[in-house]
Each structure stands twice: as C-alpha cells, then as structure tokens.
C-alpha cells in the first residue's frame, strides 16, 4: 500500500505538466497531442485509483476516458484542423512567457487554497485536489488567452480532465459524477461540432474576430 501514493502523485504531475505546457504551445496540433497525452494519463490514473481503492466503477471511468477522450476526441479535432487547414500558428492574447508566469501563479494559488483547507482529509485526496484544481484553472487560463475557437475548446476539455482527476480522487463517490462528466464531454463535443460547422457557414475562419466584430456594434 506504500506504492499508490507516489504513483498517483506521478500521474497527477504528468497531467499537470500537460496542462501547463499547453500554455506554451502556439500550434493546434501540438495542443491536441498534449491533450491526448493528458487524457491517456488520466485514464491510467483512473485505473490505478480503481485498483488502489478497489472500486470497480473507477475502471469504467478510466475506460470511458481512454476511449472517448484519449482516442475519439483528438481524432475528431485533428479532422477539423485538417479540414479547415489550421496548421498555422494561432496568435495568443498575451505573450507566451507572460502566460507561463500566470500559470505558475495559478498553481500557487491552487496550492495555497487547498493545502490548509484539507488538513482533515487523507493525504492522497489532498494531492489530487491541489493538482486537479491547478489543472482546472490552467484550462480556464488557456480558454481565456487563446483567440481561436478550437484552442478554447481544448482548454475547456483540459478543464474537464482536471474535474475527472478530482472525481477519481474522491473516495467512494457514487457514479453520478463520472457519468455526467462523460455525458458532458459527449454533448459538448456534439454541440461544439455543430457550432464549428455553423460558424464555418458564417465566418471563413474559426477565429472569433468576426463574432467580436458583431459584438462591437452597440445594441
């Protein structure tokens, strides 16, 4: 039983690293790859947690994560990138270096918030919570800093990963959470897909500049 803590810690660290290095990427393809790695690690973590807590439903979670997020979603997004020919770099709102600094600050905040709060909870949960909170915040940061719709979607998905990571860490949490996360991701992907096509009908690119133009007109 002395092995599960470092392993979980390691996987969490990997997931966090993926989320963090997403900030530094300018190319969509690279971001998608990072997301895939993150998702795969997450599924591994879910399996490991299931083994460690002896909870069967976590295996299912891991499976869902592996299939949908680790394989299907990246494929779909690569499709979109190909079709819309968006291999070129997308520009970010703030310089990359600055966004990295912000990311570090966010991680610091997450630790600051979580560590003192969970003095009573088990150490495993504490680690997971800090890490997953950082992942969530980093995902939001990516959404905030990227001007490109796909990039925002990726940031959103990485946020979801952080949620699942937290969920796997919850000892004995009923299945509701995982189910709904999966549901959310499915629906999210569907709706986003619909959107992308529609937006393609109206704007030639996925950049939100066109939308921002609409918004500029006072209403």
């Amino acid at each position: 039983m002395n092995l599960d803590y470092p392993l979980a810690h390691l996987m969490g660290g990997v997931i966090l690293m993926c989320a963090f290095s997403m900030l530094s990427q300018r190319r969509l393809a690279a971001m998608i790859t990072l997301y895939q790695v993150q998702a795969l690690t997450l599924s591994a973590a879910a399996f490991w947690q299931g083994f460690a807590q002896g909870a069967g439903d976590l295996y299912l979670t891991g499976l869902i994560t592996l299939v949908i997020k680790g394989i299907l979603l990246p494929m779909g997004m690569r499709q979109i990138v190909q079709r819309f020919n968006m291999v070129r770099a997308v520009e970010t709102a703030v310089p990359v270096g600055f966004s990295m600094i912000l990311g570090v600050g966010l991680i610091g905040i997450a630790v600051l918030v979580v560590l003192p709060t969970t003095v009573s909870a088990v150490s495993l949960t504490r680690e997971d919570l800090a890490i997953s909170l950082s992942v969530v915040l980093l995902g939001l940061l990516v959404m905030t800093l990227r001007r490109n719709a796909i990039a925002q979607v990726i940031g959103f998905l990485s946020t979801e990963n952080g949620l699942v990571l937290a969920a796997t860490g919850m000892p004995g949490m009923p299945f509701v959470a995982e189910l709904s996360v999966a549901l959310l991701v499915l629906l999210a992907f569907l709706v986003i897909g619909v959107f992308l096509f529609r937006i393609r009908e109206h704007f030639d690119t996925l950049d939100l500049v066109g939308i921002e133009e609409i918004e500029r007109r006072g209403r």
Partner: protein
Amino acid sequence: MNLCLPAVFLPLLAAPAIGVFGTRAQGALANLALNVIVFGFTVGVFFEPGSGLIHADDLGMIFGALTSFVCMTTALSNLGFVWSGNEVLSLRRWRVYHAMCQVVLGSTLLGLYADNIGLLWVAVEGATIAATVGVSLSRTASALEAAWKYFILGGVGIALALFGTMLVYLAAQPALGPGLAAMSFTALGAHATKLDGSLLTLAFVFLLFGYGTKAALVPLHGWLPDAYAEGPIPLTTALSTLMLNVALIAILRFRHLMQANFAGGGGALQPGVFLLTLGLASLLLTAFSLSRRRDARRFFGFSSIEHSGIAVFAFGIGGPAAIFGGLLHMLVHTLIKSALFQALMRGAALRGSAAPGNYSFSHLRGMIHSNKYLGWLLGGCVFALTGLPPSGLFASEFIIISQTIQRDPYVSLPLGLGLVLCAVAIIRHVGPLVFGHAPPHTKHQKAGVGINLAGLQLALGFGIAFAMPWFLLNALSSVAAALQ
C-alpha cells in the same frame, strides 16, 4: 405515489418523440398539452410530495408549481407565436424547438425536486444544453454568436459547479461516510455542522460561480442579454424566469449548508460577504447598463440580472425575513417577467413580426395606438418591474431593505442607490413605450385572447404579495425559517 417522478420524466421522455414526429402546429399543441398535464402533476405534488432521491420539499412544491404554470401560459402564447408564422424555421427546427422546450421544463423541475447535489447538477446542465440549442435555432450570425457565448460561459459555469459539487461530497464524506447520503440535501442539512468547514467554504465559492453563471450574476452575466435577444421569445421567457429560479434556489440551499456550518462552529466562513458582493455588483452594473439599450429584450435581460442580483443580495443578508423577502421577490418577478415577455411577443406580432431583432423600442413604441388593452398591459408590466406600488416587488424590496437596515446598515446605501437608478432607467421607457408616437401606418388591431392570461399573471404579480394566501404564507415562512 410520488408525483414528482411523472412531473419530471414525462416531458423528458416526450421530448424525443416531439423532436421526431409531427408538424409544427401539432408540436405546439402537444407542447401545450404536456405542459397542462405537468401543471396538474405539480399541483398534485402539494398533496403527494413523495420521498427519496427525487421528492419535493416546500420550496420545490411552490416553485415547481410556479414553473409549470409559467411554462403553461408561455406554451399557450407559443401557439400564437407559431401560427403567426413569423419565425421562419424549417420543420426539423420547429420539432427541435418544441423538444427543447420540453427538455427545459423537465430538467428545471428535476433541478427543483432533486434531493441530490449530483442530480441537481445534471438537471442544470441539461437545461443549459437545451437552451443553447434553442438559442442557436434561427441561424443568423448574431444568434450563433449568442449561442456560442452561452455555450462557452455556461460550460465553464457547469465545470465549476461540478468541481464544487465534488468538494461538497469530499467535505461531507468523512462525516456521512461514502455513498448517496453524502450528496443528499436532507442529510447534508441535518449534519451541516459536522461537515469539514474549510472545504465547504472552498466548495461554496465554486458552486457560487457555477450556479451564479446560470443566475447571471455580474461578472458571470456575459451570456444573458444576447441569449435573450436572439432566442425564440417563448424560450427566452423560460430562460429568464425558470432557470434563474433554479440557480438561485441552488445557491440558497448551499448557502444554508454553509451558514449552518458556520453557526455550528464547523469552521466555514460566513457566506454573506460573497453573496453581497455579487448581488451589489449585479445591481450597480445593471443600473448603468440599462440606460442605453435600444432592444427591448436585451433591456429586460439586464433587468433580470438586476432582479437575481437583488435576490442574491437578500440571501446574503440572511435571517428568515430577508430570505422570505428574497423568495417573494423571485416569485413575483417570475410572474411579472413572463407576463411582460408574453405581452412583448404579442406587441411585436401586432407590429409585424415576432422574429428576434424586431424588439427595438423604436419599433414597439406607442403600443396603446395598436391595441389599448395591450398597451396598458405592457406599461403595467414594465412599471411593475420598477418596484413602485402597487407592484408586488414593492413588498419584497421593502422587506429586504428593512432587514438590511437592521442587520447590515452600511450596505443599504449602495442597495438603495442601485435600486433607485435601475427603477429610474426602467420607468423612463414606460412613457414612450405606451403613450409615445407610434410608427407610421399603425392601426388598431385585436390582441387575441391569449393576452388575458398574461393579464392574469400580472394581476397575480400585483396581488399575491399584498393579499397572500395563508398556506403560501406559511410555506414560504417555514422555508425561510428553515433555510435561514
């Protein structure tokens, strides 16, 4: 038997059928029929609250009945909306639209009746997705943009809410042990003091942001005005009234957990500060955003932000009286706002088209010249939003202000300022909207019978606060006392 289950699942199960079969008229009729049946169920819930995972406490009963009532009246005026045929949609989209109306209704009721924080979350998520699809239905650029905005911001909100939900579970799990018990409101409320206070506080922040996005509190309000302005207006009515209520009630329940834990020395922080901050922000930003709106639906979207801000402010003040005031405010505001949107829909239809984008004030002004009754009704609704008597909002705002003075005198200054500014910005529009010069070639027309229902709702919104039935009074007071 437990009447909550049919009330929740009938619309949800019927939605796919409506989405696949039927002409648009049939769809509208089926929509209406389902709403009527569900209204019957929700009234029955008063006598059969049921028990278990999905059951109705007093709060659920009252607002469930209110929800289905508003949905029913909206569905009735929806008939006129459909038959006027202004909204040019393909048949497929009409089907989707009606299906989505049902999904919104079902998941809203689920959110009200669920005794499980996970289920509550699922319900809100479902309602969000349905509303998103609805908003995007008319494929204009601005509609898509509004829906996109709604999806991104709403999705973030949902994510935060889920995180908060899990944190609540984590806080409860040591005390209540793993399993469903740690996620049920009743169990949580019963053992509120035994929860891990600091973790609960963290959870509350995330829940506040998650459900606050749905309640459109500043600064989480970005999606609301556009979603209102671009969606089909019957759906907008549902959004403006029902989803706001669900989100606000969720916030109220979690606030109660935290307050009880704080009072019991569980180590949680006082929730008031967070709520007061967001409430005042909503109030004050709205006060200055209202004045330049040219589109009526955006305008009233902002006024919805204002009113949910007032409700959250009341929850933040705390104490039975303030909670009572907040709930009364939500109740009356729901009635008035839905009546207002139905009157707007009718008025825009009289002025040519009820399609989104035809709701600019310049297009609607001088309504009394199109139809006297409708003009007065519209003016009455807008006037009622200002909270001047005899509007029922006067009673609730009176209670809230008085409680603020007694419990927290200093925040009453920004509160009063915001209320006055908003009321002035709203009342400015009554004159032109009702008595102004109508656009050329306006002739007097019939308003149709459906409008009388809106009139009834407005009358309820005026009367219910001043002559409140005793059972409602008791129910609301006990809820307020329980959730203080």
